[in-house]
């Protein structure tokens, strides 16, 4: 693969990374969010502050952690606090600008399910559960969600409301006194979605290069709408791509990953 080409995963990570402004204080979920947040740090946002729920504040890992508490996070952090302090003083305390989350299932109002598919007591699939997400989504200034788009993940109805997005839409969220703005961006391998002003229904605002509207609609479990103005996502720059690839290559070497 030449540097000019890029995969849909790379496009997703690059598009998500761009969302993070320099100096932003970001509460980072593991996996795709961590990949995107660190790409931001290694490119346009060197002063972004990455907080991981295990305790590291200001982590600057040179490889991608496999878990939320890898040693590299502690060793590269400005400080490491107890896990409860992260949730009590830093998140609930109101010091987080952006919560960066992944999700198993999302609905049109950006509500997230990471708990069960099927009924709670007799689930078809038992997912890992809430983790830090409910309170991150509640208390961070705003939330970015990064996830692959498909009919099993972008669903008409989630089976369990693990993490509140805009609930039934409109001002349902504010009415409950929830402080954080909620999921202001959902970044997928196909496009970028944002809540439509007023209704708060997710609409497509930016389409990744080479992706069609039909493909996006086919990968969505509800009757997806598009914003009045939809732009094409700028394709990854050579710097973004080479930085991401070098980061992932260092990671694979360090993890002895032969997958």
């Amino acid at each position, binding site marked *: 693969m030449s540097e000019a080409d890029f995969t849909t995963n790379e496009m997703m990570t690059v598009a998500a990374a761009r969302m993070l402004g320099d100096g932003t204080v970001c509460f980072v979920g*593991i996996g795709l969010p961590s990949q995107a947040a660190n790409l931001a740090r290694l490119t346009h946002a060197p002063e972004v502050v990455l907080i991981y729920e*295990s*305790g590291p504040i200001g982590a600057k890992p040179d490889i991608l952690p496999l878990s939320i508490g890898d040693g590299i996070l502690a060793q590269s952090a400005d400080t490491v606090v107890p896990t409860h302090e992260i949730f*009590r003083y830093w998140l609930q305390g109101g010091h987080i600008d952006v919560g960066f989350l992944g999700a198993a299932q999302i609905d049109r109002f950006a509500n997230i399910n990471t708990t069960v598919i099927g009924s709670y007591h007799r689930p078809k699939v038992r997912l*890992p559960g809430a983790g830090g997400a409910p309170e991150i989504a509640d208390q961070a200034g705003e939330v970015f969600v990064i996830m692959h788009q498909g009919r099993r993940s972008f669903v008409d109805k989630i089976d369990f409301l693990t993490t509140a997005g805009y609930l039934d839409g409109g001002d349902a969220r504010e009415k409950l006194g929830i402080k954080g703005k909620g999921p202001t961006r959902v970044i997928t391998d196909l496009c970028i979605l944002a809540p439509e002003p007023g209704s708060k229904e997710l609409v497509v605002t930016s389409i990744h290069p080479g992706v069609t509207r039909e493909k996006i609609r086919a990968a969505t479990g509800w009757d997806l709408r598009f914003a009045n103005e939809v732009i094409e996502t700028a394709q990854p720059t050579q710097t973004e791509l080479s930085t991401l690839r070098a980061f992932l290559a260092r990671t694979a070497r360090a993890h002895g990953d032969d997958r």
Partner: protein
Amino acid sequence: MAEFCSLRDAVAAHVHDGDTVTLEGFTHLIPFGAGHELIRQRLRDLTLIRMTPDLIFDQLIGMGCAAKVVFAWGGNPGVGSLHRLRDAVENHWPQPLEIEEHSHAGMANAFVAGASNLPFAVLRGYKANDLAKFNDRIRTVTCPFTGEELAAVPAIRPDVGIIHAQRADRQGNVLIHGIVGLQKEAVLGAERSIVTVEEIVDRLDPPANSCVLPHWVVDAVAVVPGGAHPSYALGYYERDNPFYIAWDAIAKDREVFTRWVERHVLGTTDFSEFRASIDGAGAGEAGP
């Protein structure tokens, strides 16, 4: 008062069938050695508490040690599902498993309340989601000053708190550094506590304001080198990521899982034998 003993003696003395047990350690310093000893001593009907269950709970659940699990996130970090946890919840194998499910914020606060000898914790949380619908231990309290309604969860005050730490001195004072998670709270809030350590040192020499557990709040200290493997101990060894990856295939199949535990855990007498048993092959072979 900390007593130095073997892990086997520590578990035999302090853990009983039906106990509520927490094995804390957030990714770092997960007490795998101690978890294996619970399996070897065939403990039953345990209520197991961990914010992030991880493979150690997968093993305990799959071997039928647990009647109930209290948790917030049950996955194989960076890899996928905990198949034994799923099989117990989805199919009641090897037995039904009651679950009490929280968020991280809820459990972190519950551990703090436990260490503080309070009956409950107050937090802003569980707002507008389904968790409280399926967990009647998520309730509310009203602020007596502002009238605001906040979430409340019961304090975590287990019968036994088990953690792994980097080292202890000869008195049994314990030092933990790096990601300290909820380990201090897990010990201070517990009726009895077991700490496994990488080594005993003459002088602890803790940095200023670091996480130290004095010997008089710890019941048993057992030296278990590598006792957090495949998790890691900062300053001693790295996380064994290939083990976590290999676990997926082992845990996916009931028989493969059972053979693996029988060969490597039940077939060994302690954690050093376990380590030798799997040596050189990631998580080792499942056995015949």
